[in-house]
């Protein structure tokens, strides 16, 4: 049972435009949601998180939106840069510091 799903395996955008990565979840017990970026041969790097009591969290070029009723979250990157090209994973947990459940990942390619 895939509790966290990223339905788009890949996304390609032009430099300077907005990248929107989507994630859906099924477990209503999830309370915290996180986005990680992963380059090949490296571990995942934390990007941004959001608690279920919020619907938006912003950090520089990265904004995460949470729609609890739809069990959907999205990561917006604007403006997109070629260095943003990586695999992006969304993850969810039921409590701060507890185990993470990951989506399948979306390969983002930002073209110059």
């Amino acid at each position: 049972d895939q509790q966290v799903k990223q339905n788009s395996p890949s996304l390609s955008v032009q430099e300077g435009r907005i990248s929107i990565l989507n994630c859906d979840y099924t477990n209503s017990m999830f309370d915290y949601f996180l986005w990680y970026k992963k380059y090949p041969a490296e571990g995942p790097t934390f990007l941004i998180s959001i608690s279920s009591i919020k619907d938006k969290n912003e950090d520089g070029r990265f904004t995460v939106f949470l729609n609890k009723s739809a069990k959907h979250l999205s990561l917006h990157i604007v403006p997109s840069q070629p260095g943003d090209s990586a695999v992006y994973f969304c993850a969810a947990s039921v409590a701060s510091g507890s185990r993470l459940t990951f989506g399948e990942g979306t390969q983002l390619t930002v073209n110059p």
Partner: protein
Amino acid sequence: SAVISQKPSRDICQRGTSLTIQCQVDSQVTMMFWYRQQPGQSLTLIATANQGSEATYESGFVIDKFPISRPNLTFSTLTVSNMSPEDSSIYLCSAHIPGQALSYEQYFGPGTRLTVT
């Protein structure tokens, strides 16, 4: 943030042998986690390792195959035992750093890329 290191970074092993992966955190942490990323797949949690207690394994993972040690608050090891080619994966350790306001994130090590021939 925290710095997490893993050794080895990669290895090629013969089937039937065992490999122990080390994970070192630069600060004391209560919970450490071991994940596996098989080729083209997402990250799957193998087990949670708390200091001073037995590791808690996820469904599909057993202690005989993946024994874990957690001797102190900064260090853990994962052993992949009696390896088969299906164990070829990236193995990642992670830790939650407590005490930071509104800190939900876990930090990850760089991973150990294991190839079993």
